[in-house]
């Protein structure tokens, strides 16, 4: 690991709607080193996608706002960058793979053109011919025959579409790739293929990646580190060993693992976490997991817990203090 590529400090994001303010991200600290893959895990609404969109500065217009904090990518403080400069960064230094390949491609533009567009935007020095060759080689890289680049998205299957989306994201060899549940919309056999391909390409291109997912299995397979998100903050972060090992974990993380079926155990029931995430329009003052925590104490409700760091492992819970 050679220094931090991405460094997020104290990020707050608010969605201002007509009825109320939604506090989507509340003091998020996160960093990714060069070449590293970070798994970002959490249930729906925890703020995973919002984190990714904040890095791209593509929060919904006039609704989503970064109210506080800093995002430093490759030495550039993104919150201070103008929209014009941001366009040079998007697709070039950082790119994103979206969740649903079915709707992520423009239905009326041939897929080759959609890949080509990124290159013409960010590789102006290339000639038309060189760009054509690049498109062909990218198609080969993601395992699609270049002869099909003149076809339209509706002529491809879901897995193939996701390969095209990945081709778009990787065509400028970005330093950071944000993969927002890249396999959720695909069926299981295709999932494995796409994940294998992503791992190979990531190693080949030395791209860092934030992999957003619900799937703890995928994380174990692909990631170097894991961050668990809950109600807009990171509640636990560590290496794969820290979280998948037998050591103590945040009660929420325990709960996540408890809701996975085990192949070896003889227990017949899963142990889901009771309750729901707190309402993001009025968050509790203390620990955000208090309501659902099986190990809560009186202090937890009144006072928000600090992040307790020990080595590579950090946990936002009073049980780990001192």
């Amino acid at each position: 690991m050679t220094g931090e590529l991405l460094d997020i400090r104290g990020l707050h994001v608010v969605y201002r709607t007509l009825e109320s303010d939604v506090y989507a991200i509340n003091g998020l600290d996160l960093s990714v080193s060069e070449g590293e893959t970070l798994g970002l895990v959490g249930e729906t609404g925890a703020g995973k996608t919002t984190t990714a969109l904040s890095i791209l500065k593509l929060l919904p217009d006039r609704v989503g706002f970064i109210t506080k904090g800093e995002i430093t990518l490759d030495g550039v403080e993104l919150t201070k960058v103008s929209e014009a400069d941001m366009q040079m960064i998007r697709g070039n230094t950082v790119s994103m793979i979206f969740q649903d390949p079915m709707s992520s491609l423009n239905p009326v533009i041939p897929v080759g053109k959609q890949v080509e567009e990124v290159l013409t935007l960010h590789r102006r020095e290339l000639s038309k011919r060189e760009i054509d060759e690049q498109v062909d080689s990218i198609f080969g890289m993601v395992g699609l025959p270049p002869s099909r680049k003149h076809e339209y998205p509706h002529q491809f299957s879901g897995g193939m579409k996701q390969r095209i989306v990945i081709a778009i994201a990787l065509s400028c060899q970005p330093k950071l790739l944000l993969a927002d549940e890249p396999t959720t919309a695909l069926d299981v056999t295709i999932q494995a293929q796409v994940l294998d391909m992503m791992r190979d390409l990531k190693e080949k291109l030395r791209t860092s990646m934030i992999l957003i997912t619900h799937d703890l299995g995928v994380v174990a397979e692909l990631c170097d580190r894991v961050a668990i998100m809950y109600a807009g903050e990171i509640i636990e972060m560590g290496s794969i060993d820290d979280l998948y090992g037998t050591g103590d974990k945040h009660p929420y993380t325990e709960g996540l693992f408890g809701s996975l079926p085990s192949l070896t155990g003889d227990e017949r029931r899963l142990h889901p976490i009771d309750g729901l995430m707190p309402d993001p329009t009025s968050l509790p003052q203390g620990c955000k997991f208090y309501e659902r925590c099986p190990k809560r104490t009186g202090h937890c409700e009144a006072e928000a817990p600090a992040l307790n760091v020990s080595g590579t492992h950090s946990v936002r819970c009073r049980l780990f203090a001192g």
Partner: protein
Amino acid sequence: MARFVFRRLLSMIPVIIGISFIIFSILALTPGDPAQIILGDGATPEAISELREQMGLNDFFIVRYIRYIAGAVRGDFGLSYRTQLPVLNELLARLPNTLVLALFGVGCAAMVGVPIGIISAVKQYTLIDNATRVFAMVMTAIPAFWLGLMLMLAFALKLRLVPAIGADTWEGFILPSVTLAIGNMAVMIRMTRSTMLEVIREDYIRTALAKGVSRRKVILRHALANALLPIVTTIGINFGLQMGGAMICETVFSIPGLGTLIITSVRQKDIPMVMASVIFVALTISLVTLAMDLIYSFFDPRVRMQNFRKGGARA
């Protein structure tokens, strides 16, 4: 493509026959004797029955219909009961007026309304958007005859910039075209705005933004092509309707067009004239629909593949 067009043209034949049959039946069933109408109130019963015989009105209904269609396919739509002149001549004489009104009314509306609708969608909930929406709502609510009269009052009578009525000079077409354009424009603005709002929320727009495409290019290159289908439909339908004649507008500005022609002919039970006009309108609308389908397949590869099966993949 030629095959597709040919197939579609063939399928128009039953449509036209169906429509003409329905109109023919309705006109045949309504009371009022054409011979009586032609000869006027003072005619003797003998004269009327002689004319009926001469016009073949005593024949069986189906026979009369077949005789009419047989004439029509040879281009003979009969003589107007009112003027005793060939129906086709009258129709063709009025067609240019209606065509000009429809082209300008819908064309200007599209050229102004579509861009305004796009801006309104892109700047949703801003001052521009709100102003546009109010404008579109007011323009939809204003009746054409009132708007026409007001324009006439202002530009023809007060400012004396254009003639108030008549189709003799091209200036005479300005006010009626504007009147039609404003009504159509309101529809275009609302249609374009709502379609664009839908499209710019699509995932592929976010993908394009994440690639680093500028917002302007995203709208023009990625969003517009996807929003065009409903917009083209609206333009086509409005043009088709306008070709059926803009009766109110034609009446207010005394422009002899198809709209007033149909109304007068129906009122006077001028059967050949009504038949010919209705068939003509049906034909125009069918052709406009075909044109729209061809435009669709130009914009949307999915439609293209459906329409022209073989080798539709290439752009």
